[in-house]
């Protein structure tokens, strides 16, 4: 069937199904889902990238809002860790969302692909941080960026604290700006910044990344709404699908071994990045 000839109602049903599946994977990977949703829907569905980016941001917002309660209750997301990083990230994301409307679509697709593949390779090359022997810095102590969480998959309790708080704040400013430009919600880089830079345990990094996205995207989402870039037929089936899928993903995260989570993040990001890059360069539109 020709894409153009398909009846309109096919698309919301397909969006719901795709969003449900991405919602499960996204929570396990700590990526919010915009990083998967934007390249997949942007390349396989007939909507303009402006609407896909707007829906991607709302998608990530809805999924992370929905996954937040189980992650917080399981100790896999830390509110104290999220508060300072989210404030810096949301101001930067808001500015990035304004800039994103001024950049040509093909350039956005190409840059998006390069960015996602680069981060996937970074996660692949670097080993997860050892969070057991970390000395908190003064700012981290003042903000009480610490916690305890029980990992049911490994059968251990981890007493954690973070360090390099100022560098972490700078990183989340940069991540928020880039995420706002691409409508990604910034989850694609949160996990490496929290785990590799600030030394939060991987699962706390994954869970807190989701909570961060829910705060950061709440400000950027309004930019898209006020610009008229949220098409209800695209946005609503997507958020309904992801809200159901991410609840399931949040429950699976506790029982999934950390190396599996890491490999999942890398594979999914390479696929999504490759697709965005090929589209931006006109190789496979």
């Amino acid at each position, binding site marked *: 069937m020709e894409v153009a000839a398909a009846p309109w109602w096919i698309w919301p049903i397909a969006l719901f199904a795709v969003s449900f599946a991405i919602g499960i994977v996204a929570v396990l990977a700590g990526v919010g889902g915009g990083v998967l949703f934007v390249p997949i829907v942007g390349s396989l569905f007939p909507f303009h990238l402006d609407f896909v980016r707007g829906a991607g941001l709302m998608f990530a917002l809805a999924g992370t809002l929905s996954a937040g*309660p189980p992650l917080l209750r399981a100790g896999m997301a830390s509110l104290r860790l999220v508060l300072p990083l989210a404030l810096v990230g949301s*101001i930067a994301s808001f500015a990035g969302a304004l800039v994103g409307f001024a950049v040509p679509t093909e350039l956005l697709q190409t840059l998006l692909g390069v960015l996602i593949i680069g981060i996937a390779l970074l996660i692949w090359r670097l080993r997860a941080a050892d969070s057991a022997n970390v000395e908190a810095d003064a700012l981290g102590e003042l903000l009480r960026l610490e916690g305890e969480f029980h990992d049911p998959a490994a059968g251990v309790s981890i007493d954690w604290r973070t360090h390099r708080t100022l560098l972490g704040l700078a990183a989340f400013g940069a991540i928020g700006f880039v995420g706002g430009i691409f409508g990604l919600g910034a989850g694609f880089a949160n996990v490496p910044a929290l785990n590799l830079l600030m030394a939060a345990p991987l699962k706390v990094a994954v869970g807190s990344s989701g909570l961060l996205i829910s705060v950061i995207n709440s400000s950027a989402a309004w930019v898209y709404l006020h*610009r*008229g870039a949220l098409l209800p037929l695209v946005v609503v089936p997507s958020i309904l699908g992801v809200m159901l899928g991410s609840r399931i993903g949040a429950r699976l995260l506790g029982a999934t071994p950390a190396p599996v989570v890491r490999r999942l993040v890398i594979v999914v990001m390479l696929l999504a990045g490759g697709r965005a890059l090929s589209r931006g360069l006109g190789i496979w539109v």
Partner: protein
Amino acid sequence: MGLNELYARWLDVATKAGFAISLCAFLVYAGGLLPAFVPLEELPRYWALPVHRFIEVTGAPQGWAWLGELAYGDGLNLAAIALLGLVTPACYARLVPALVAERDWPQAALAAGQLVVLLVAASGLAG
């Protein structure tokens, strides 16, 4: 009750309400129970256009103008989407007094700052 549990409780109620409202609004829209500002059958002709062209051609609302289109199915859905955008500000509004009660001044100041950023973004004044 700890901060994480307090935030989780508010988030849980707000997101479940958001899901239910979005689902109802979409069924009203897709089921044709209310007329659409841009009719669903005509939408495929326009959804591949960049957003500025889409608005030019269809006259779709920008800024807060969607508030005047709540009698339309698509306007109603934009309201449901906007409600999801208000979930985090609502949770932060509950979090700030909880942090003040704990005398955790640095985190209370950060949460209050975040609330201001979220409200400025929602107002559309800076966008």
